[in-house]
């Protein structure tokens, strides 16, 4: 009886999370971007629900890639990783012990980032080197140089982002560890049930700001979208995805927005996503608030190059370290 109750809780949470995440891109596009840009904008269901469904009904082509089946499998792996992340946050799964800890979450987020590197190195689109043009005519400059694809530039950038771009999220996650004194999600949630949410302490407030910036970097949202700037790499690692694999890319993005927001709710407010708990409404509110704030910030900023990216990440990381220090005072 107890087991079926738990399983229903887990499944129900997953289903509700998925449905809400389908609406998030539409809300971002219609209510925020379109209002700021003084135009009408698409209906809410179009970018998030109707676009993936439409892509399911398109012809499956073989992508231009040295390993097409591996390339096509990568978005499915991404979706599964985000699903596993959400499952680990649900309280009924905390019996998993070390898998339901901060270390496992950081590990899965790392794998999510590495996906971009694999996708970029396997994609060879017609819009880059394969565009037919008689470049190597007589009098051309440097005719013997190797030619790289635009997606390989994206791979280099993804590598840099893995090296330093994920600092803010990880430091913010460790702020909650520093305040509550434990790596396990059960202890973090229990501490906040007893002593109130961390968000209302100095360390927690600073950590929340750092988490928000890290959230934007992880989702490659403007201004941190150097991985897929339209002006040079067009779409980056996703260039060769078509039909149902593109649907998976779309679905993963909305789902990741929701899951990271519920990670924030778990770590900084002490409310784990659980449909059987009436506090689930707060998780939903946080999941709607974060994309809205992110959309407002992204509508008013250009894309950063490394000249602005490095100082921003450095500054935000220092803020995060200050937050950890404040937790011990």
């Amino acid at each position, binding site marked *: 009886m107890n087991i079926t109750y738990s399983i229903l809780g887990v499944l129900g949470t997953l289903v509700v999370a998925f449905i809400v995440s389908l609406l998030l891109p539409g809300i971002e596009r219609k209510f925020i971007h379109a209002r*700021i*840009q003084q135009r009408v904008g698409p209906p809410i269901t179009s970018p998030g629900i109707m676009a993936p469904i439409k892509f399911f009904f398109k012809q499956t082509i073989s992508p231009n890639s040295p390993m097409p089946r591996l390339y096509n499998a990568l978005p499915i792996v991404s979706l599964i990783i985000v699903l596993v992340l959400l499952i680990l946050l649900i309280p009924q799964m905390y019996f998993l012990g070390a898998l339901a800890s901060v270390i496992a979450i950081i590990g899965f987020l790392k794998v999510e980032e590495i996906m971009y590197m694999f996708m970029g190195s396997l994609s060879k689109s017609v819009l880059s080197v394969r*565009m037919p043009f008689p*470049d190597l005519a007589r009098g051309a400059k*440097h005719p013997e*140089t190797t030619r790289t694809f635009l997606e390989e530039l994206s791979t280099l950038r993804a590598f840099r982002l893995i090296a330093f771009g994920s600092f803010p999220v990880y430091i913010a996650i460790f702020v909650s560890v520093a305040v509550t004194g434990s790596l396990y999600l059960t202890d973090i949630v229990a501490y906040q049930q007893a002593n109130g949410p961390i968000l209302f302490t100095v360390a927690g407030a600073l950590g929340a700001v750092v988490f928000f910036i890290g959230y934007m970097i992880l989702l490659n949202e403007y201004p941190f979208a150097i991985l897929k700037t*339209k*002006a*040079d790499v067009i779409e980056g690692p996703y260039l060769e995805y078509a039909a149902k694999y593109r649907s998976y890319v779309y679905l993963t993005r909305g789902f990741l927005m929701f899951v990271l927001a519920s990670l924030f709710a778990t770590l900084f407010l002490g409310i784990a996503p659980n449909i059987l708990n009436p506090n689930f409404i707060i998780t939903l509110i946080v999941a709607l608030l974060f994309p809205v704030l992110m959309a407002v910030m992204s509508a008013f900023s250009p894309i950063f190059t490394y000249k*602005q990216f490095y100082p921003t990440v450095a500054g935000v990381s220092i803020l995060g370290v200050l937050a950890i220090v404040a937790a011990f005072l």
Partner: protein
Amino acid sequence: MEDNKKNRTVIEAEVPMGTVHPAALEPYRVRLFVEDEIVRDAEITVGLNHRGIERIMEGLPVEKANSLTEKICGICSNSHIWNSCLVGEKAIGIEVPERAQYIRIIMEELERLHSHFLYLAHGSEVLGHETFAMRLFYIRETVMDLLGMIGGNRVQYGVSILGGVRPRCELDENRIQQIKTGMDLIEEKATDFAARFVADPLVMSRITGVGVISQKDALRLAATGPTLRATGVAKDLRTEMKEYEPFDFNVITQEGGDVKSQLLMRVMEIPESINIIRQAIRDLPDGPITNRSWEMQDAPLTKSYIEVPRGTLYHSYALEDGRVRHCVIRTPSMANIGAMQHACIGHHITDAQLSIVQCDPCFTCTDRAIQIIKI
């Protein structure tokens, strides 16, 4: 080879950005030679847009040839047809009535407005700032409506003809009033936008110090127009054109030669154009707008230079039996290509794209057949 001489820089790879690309409004080909995402050398190939305009114009009747020059470019269309009519009028010796000259100048300044707004919008888009791009396109719509009202079509209006201006483009009270309200509206929105643009720290940090062209390099590479004036050289052909004599305007220059100077250059030229249009409306003389009392003659090769939104435009042709012979056209974007190629060296690839766009390229104007003579 050359790489041994410049032993400091090593070229690792080449990134070709091709015929079809989101940052390219027209097809052109850029090959960037990079070392760890920093551009060390660049090569811009034009010629993808070549349609053989000079070849088509050989032997056309001169009125038809004038209308055809408008189709060279959709952004600076009025400039081409005005210059072509000036060549014909100079060759045959036609006197253009004053009212027609004022109307032609109003159209040219309106075109300068729409071209500068388009440049700023495209620059914002390459920066990644969609919101600014949309705001600028919205302001630009007012100018397009005014152009459509005077000429009949939003793009390619065909206002000038040999001897004056088409009868449809007569400015009566109603149209003058609409131009006045339009100018007030644009001035208010443009100053508001400029204040917001300059005060935005994220955009300013992205464009300061990027794509620098020094004054010496700009003069050596024969840049022209606002690209040259943004490096500090005060050369504007409008001060020497006799059509612009009755008007008062300032020649804007900026120091620095980077993307910020280029953008601010166009932003500051907008109030000057609005000023000229207001002066023209206020002082509009009465009289006819077309001079039909002239006779076709044969003429040797005649040249004409005018100042268009992007620089100095050159047209020339000879007349034989009412038909055009030996037409040669040189647009300002062709002269700016050297500066474009030089500006993107030394920057990150995303900034290199911005450096190419900063010189306001119009590759459809550029593709003529040229003969390079080594001096």
